[in-house]
């Protein structure tokens, strides 16, 4: 297990910011820490890395206790072997790419696992042709790859990534995401990944912790949390929705579509390059979901999914309401969020418990919204 408990009060003039976070995550896979700017995400990572020393803290990775204020245990940050990938890369300007990559080797034991050898990391992140370059001649995406490689080559027991894609434009993001996916699949290393983009989380994370005002509000699998909570108030870029676990059932080649099965119901998406039986995750944005009280006919929308209303979130000042629809069974609920106007909700007199049909256009579920789980 990866245990993080931290409590601290930051006083900056008259502002008091309180962190009071407690998190127990599995020590394999990627745990995303999700929250709006100022929620304390970076602060939490700095506490884990030991760059901040809070009033109260306990960090345990596997069986190793890194710090525990209750019995005075404190491993200094340089001895924690916690890799940190910063948003702004922080590459050393006086060293070449290779010099940056080798920096941590001077201070750390060599890794036991061949997965973290120099050649393996260079290969994984495709750094071979960058090695002799100066870091002044790297693009944003290349710089971030070097920064990730530098952290991995210091032989970490845990990797922290602080919005590594936030400073990159959309093209650079899609250039680097496959490398991060590769990292997750080929390294047996727990990763804490801070982000406020649900599509990143959907592609990379196994677990999701929601951080708000310094507190962990929810923790669970990505599918669970996105179905339970409306995360849209916490994102800056409006990239939210529900993440559904699904399986590829068949390809409808003639129409360029792929049929998936999600929560026991068929779901058509634009064609995927994956074999039947593959497990995927589908991100359904709430604004792409419409609701109907009866099964509509003569409609262009291909996905008509039966369910019932679980809850309705409305606030008087907003012109929209978010409706949580259970498309699973009552025993094994699977939740889907639909965002509709308040006017539409009033016209349909939506009530909790009401049976509804959720309508999702297949074109809204393109390959940017679907990925391997």
């Amino acid at each position, binding site marked *: 297990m990866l245990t993080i408990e931290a409590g601290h009060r930051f006083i900056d003039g008259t502002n008091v910011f309180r962190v009071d976070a407690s998190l127990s995550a599995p020590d394999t896979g990627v745990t995303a820490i999700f929250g709006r700017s100022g929620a304390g995400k970076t602060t939490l990572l700095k506490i884990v890395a030991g760059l901040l020393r809070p009033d109260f803290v306990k960090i345990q990775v596997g069986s190793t206790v890194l710090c525990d204020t209750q019995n005075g245990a404190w491993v200094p940050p340089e001895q924690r072997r916690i890799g*940190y990938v910063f948003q702004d890369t922080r590459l050393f300007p*006086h060293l070449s790419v290779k010099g940056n990559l080798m*920096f941590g080797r001077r201070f750390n034991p060599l890794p036991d696992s061949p997965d973290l050898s120099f050649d393996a990391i260079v290969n994984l992140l495709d750094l071979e042709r960058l090695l002799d370059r100066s870091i002044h001649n790297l693009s944003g995406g290349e710089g971030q790859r070097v920064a990730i490689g530098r952290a991995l080559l210091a032989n970490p027991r845990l990797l922290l990534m602080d919005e590594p894609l936030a400073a990159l434009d959309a093209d650079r993001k899609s250039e680097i995401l496959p490398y991060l996916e590769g990292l997750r699949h080929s390294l047996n290393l727990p990763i804490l990944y801070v982000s406020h983009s649900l599509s990143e989380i959907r592609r990379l994370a196994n677990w999701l912790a929601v951080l708000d005002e310094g507190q962990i509000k929810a923790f669970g699998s990505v599918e669970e949390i996105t179905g339970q909570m409306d995360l849209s108030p916490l994102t800056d870029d409006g990239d939210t929705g529900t993440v559904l676990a699904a399986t590829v059932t068949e390809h409808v080649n003639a129409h360029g579509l792929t049929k998936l099965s999600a929560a026991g119901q068929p779901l058509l998406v634009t064609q995927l390059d994956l074999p039947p039986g593959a497990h995927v995750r589908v991100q359904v944005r709430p604004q792409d979901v419409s609701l109907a009280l009866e099964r509509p006919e003569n409609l262009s929308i291909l996905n008509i999914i039966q369910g019932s209303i679980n809850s309705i979130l409305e606030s008087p000042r907003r012109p929209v309401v978010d409706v949580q629809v259970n498309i699973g069974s009552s025993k094994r609920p699977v939740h889907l969020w639909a965002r509709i106007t308040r006017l539409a909700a009033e016209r349909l007199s939506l009530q909790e418990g009401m049976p509804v049909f959720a309508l999702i256009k297949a074109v809204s579920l393109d390959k940017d919204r679907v990925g391997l789980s």
Partner: protein
Amino acid sequence: MFGFSSLELEALQISLKVSLWSVSLSLPLAMGVAWLLARKEFRGKAVLNAVIHLPLVVPPVVIGYLLLILLGRKGILGSFLNDWFNIGLVFTWQGAAIAASVVAFPLFVRPIRQALEGVDPRLEEAAITLGANRRQAFFAVTLPIVMPGVLTGALLFFARALGEFGATITFAANIPGETQTLPLALYAATQTPGGDPIALRLVFLSLVLAMAALLTSEWLSRKTHFKVRGR
């Protein structure tokens, strides 16, 4: 050698000895003070900054006289050094080195401080997450990046120490073979009837020394600049 008298060569040797010792002794101190001024906030920072820069605005003779008061045989610190360690600084080349150091010190601190202010302190944080302790992070990351600033400071300091006159003659006097540096020897030559040929040769030596220092510093800074910028 080349028609230089032993007195002139001795002056060159003393000048070099005094300047080089000044540079090496002042280097760690200048780094420390520059680091304090660039990275730390503390009470009395403005006062420290003013005191460091004082020699730039005060006539060197004043500095020399202050050193006499402070470090002279009857001085506050000087009597202590004399009684306990039997160290006398007045009229010695070590005294000349101290006088030159004090006068040139601000020129050493300023470029280092500016270079340090240009380095993102978060780079050291990154180094720490990679396993370096604070000291290692400074020496492996910050120091190489500020190296051009250190070299600039060292050159300015060296040049100023080489030309130091007022504080040296006041504190260490003009003793041939002990404290008579090139400028002091030149001054003595100009005060002696028929000393013109000596003065000219001393001028020549001074120019050669200055050129050598400039070229060395240019070469060194090109080397470190190349490393830092990587081009």
